[in-house]
C-alpha cells in the first residue's frame, strides 16, 4: 500500500486559465491549482518546476507578483522540447507544478527604502516583473524606480503593454525601452542595453537588479561598475539545468552552491566567489 506522504519530487496538478501571446516565441500562462487557488505562496524571484507528463519537467521563474492572490503566471520562451509542448497548451489544459523553489530577491530587507534600477533583456524580464509588481504594490517601502528593458526587436518585447501603460504612469517610476536595430515603425530608443545604460548615466545611489542573456549581464555589470556601483549593490539570477529543484540531483551545482536552492538570485559579489561555470 502506498503511503499518503507526497514526496517533494511528486508534482501537483494545475490548470491553465489564460494564455497570452507576447511575442513570436513567448507566451504567458496563467495557472491555478486544481481547486482554483494559487497553489502556494511565493516570494519575488522564486521559481517552480512546470511539467507536461510524458514530455518533461523544467524550472521556470514565476513572473506574477506574490500580491496576485488569484493565480500564478509563467512567461515562457519556446526554445526546446518541453517549451514547444507548453506553447501548444490551451485554456483548460492541465499541467503539473511543484514549488516554490529557490532564494528570492531580498525585497523586504536589502531592497527596502532603496532606489531601484531594473535592467532586463528579452525573456529576462520574467523574474523581474514579479519584483517590480511587488514593489508597485508596496510603493511606500521603496524609493525611485527605473526600468531599462531591451529586446532584439519590437516584436520581441515581453510585457510591453503593462510596462508602458501601467508602470510608466506610476509616481517616481521611469520606463526606458530599447530595441537592438532600427525599425520603420519604432519611434523609441535603438541600441543595445549596456550602451543605453551608459547614456542614461544613473548615479550609484540605487540597487540594481539585472536579468537577461549572459552576455548582456556581463556588459551591464561592467557598465555599472564603471558608473561607480559596488558589486554588493547589484543582484542577478542564474539559470542552469535542473532536474530535482531541491539541491540533490547535482545538475545546477557550481562550486559549493546549488543554483536551485542557494540561488537563483545571487548578489554579484557572491557570484565572484563561484567558479566561472554559469
Amino acid at each position: 500500500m502506498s503511503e499518503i506522504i507526497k514526496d517533494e519530487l511528486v508534482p501537483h496538478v494545475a490548470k491553465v486559465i489564460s494564455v497570452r501571446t507576447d511575442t513570436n516565441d513567448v507566451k504567458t500562462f496563467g495557472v491555478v491549482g486544481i481547486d482554483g487557488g494559487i497553489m502556494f505562496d511565493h516570494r519575488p524571484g522564486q521559481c517552480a518546476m512546470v511539467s507536461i507528463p510524458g514530455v518533461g519537467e523544467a524550472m521556470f521563474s514565476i513572473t506574477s507578483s506574490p500580491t496576485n492572490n488569484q493565480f500564478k503566471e509563467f512567461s515562457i520562451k519556446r526554445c526546446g522540447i518541453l517549451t514547444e509542448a507548453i506553447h501548444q497548451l490551451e485554456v483548460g489544459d492541465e499541467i503539473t507544478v511543484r514549488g516554490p523553489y529557490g532564494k528570492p530577491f531580498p525585497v523586504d530587507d536589502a531592497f527596502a527604502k532603496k532606489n531601484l534600477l531594473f535592467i532586463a533583456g528579452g525573456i529576462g524580464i520574467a523574474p523581474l516583473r514579479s519584483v517590480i509588481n511587488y514593489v508597485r504594490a508596496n510603493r511606500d517601502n521603496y524609493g525611485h524606480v527605473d526600468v531599462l528593458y531591451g529586446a532584439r526587436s519590437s516584436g520581441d518585447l515581453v510585457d510591453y503593454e503593462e510596462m508602458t501603460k501601467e508602470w510608466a504612469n506610476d509616481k517616481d517610476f521611469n520606463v526606458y525601452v530599447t530595441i537592438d536595430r532600427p525599425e520603420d515603425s519604432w519611434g523609441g530608443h535603438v541600441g543595445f542595453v549596456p550602451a543605453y545604460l551608459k547614456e542614461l548615466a544613473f548615479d550609484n545611489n540605487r540597487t540594481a537588479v539585472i536579468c537577461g542573456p549572459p552576455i548582456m549581464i556581463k556588459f551591464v555589470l561592467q557598465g555599472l561598475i564603471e558608473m561607480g556601483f559596488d558589486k554588493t549593490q547589484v543582484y542577478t539570477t542564474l539559470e542552469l539545468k535542473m532536474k530535482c529543484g531541491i539541491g540533490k540531483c547535482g545538475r545546477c551545482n557550481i562550486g559549493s552552491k546549488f543554483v536551485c536552492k542557494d540561488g537563483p538570485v545571487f548578489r554579484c559579489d557572491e557570484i565572484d566567489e563561484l567558479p566561472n561555470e554559469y
Partner: protein
Amino acid sequence: MKKLALSNLNSLYNAINDKMKLYLPIENNGAVNFGEYSDGANVNLNKMTIKSAKDAFFPQCEDLSNFKKEGKHIIVEQGELVSENFVIFGVRACDVRAFHILDTVFLEGYLDTFYEARRKHGIVISLSCNKPEESCFCSNFGIDPAEPKGDVESYITDGYMYFNPVTQKGAEFMAQFDSLFENSDDKAVKELQVKIGDIVGKLPLSNLPLNEFGGDKLDALFNRPEWQGLSESCIGCGTCTYVCPTCQCYDVKDYKTNTGVKRFRCWDSCMRKDFTMMAHGTNRPSHLQRFRQRFMHKLVYHPANHNGEFSCVGCGRCVAKCPVSMNIVKVMKTLGGNK
C-alpha cells in the same frame, strides 16, 4: 557478542529470508555483487563487490510517480515507498560510511521520502575486511575496516562468523534469531582486528595528501594546470560514477506506458556531456570541466557544505575498475604534490 559456525550460515540466511528480504554479496560468473538471496544462492563474503551497496537505499532506477489522463484531467500517483523491513548483509566499512554521506544529501534540507523509507526499513549487517586490498584507502578518511559499524557488526575468523549489535535496531534484529547463535567472548575478534590493523598500516595508498583538499580549497585547486593532463586520459565512460558508493547525481525521466506515464529517476554522471545541457547550451562544454567537476565535488564542494566531510570513502572501486587507470587517488596525488 554472538557467534555462528560458518557451516551453519545457510540456516541464518534462510531464517532471515523467511521473515524479510535479504540482500548480500552473490557470485555470478566470477562477478560478486549485492543481490537478493534465494536458497542455494552462491554467497561470497570474501570478495569486495564490484558495485557498491548504495542500491539498497538509492537504487539505480526507481519510480517517482505515475500519471494517468482522464479526458483533460491528469491524475498523479506517488511511486510506492518501501514499507517492509529488509536486510543488507556483508556491507564493508567503506560502504557503511557512504550511507551516512548519502544521508547528509537525501535527509538534510528537503527530505527525500523514497530514500528515507528505505533507510528506515533497512537493517545494515556490516562485515570487517579481513584482507583490505591494495586499491583500498579508506583509512585516509578515518574509516576502520576492522570496525565496520552499521546496525550489526560481523567478523569471520576461526571457522565462525561473529556478530555484535551496534544499534538498537541491530539488537532487535539479532534477538529475532537468537536461537541460532552461541554466546561468545570477543577474543578471536580482537585478534582479527589487530591483524587487520597491521595490513592497513602497510597499504600503499594509506597516506594521501588530504590536507591539500577541503571546503576552502576552491581557489587553490580550480585553475590548476594539472587538470588538463589528468582529464586527457579519461575516456568519459562513467564507470567510476556507477561503482562509486557516494556518487549521488541523478536524472529524472518520463516514459509512456500502456496506461499513462511513469516518471523515474536513475543514476547519472556529472561527467556526461549532456548532464548540464539545456535548450540554449551547456555551462560545462569541455571534458576538462566535467572531469574536474566530479573530483571538485567530492574533495571541495561536498566538504564545504558538510562540515569538512569528503564524499569519498576510499573503497578503491574506481581505482580497480577504471579502464584507463585514472582515478581519485591519481588526482589527489597530482594536485596534492605527493607524486
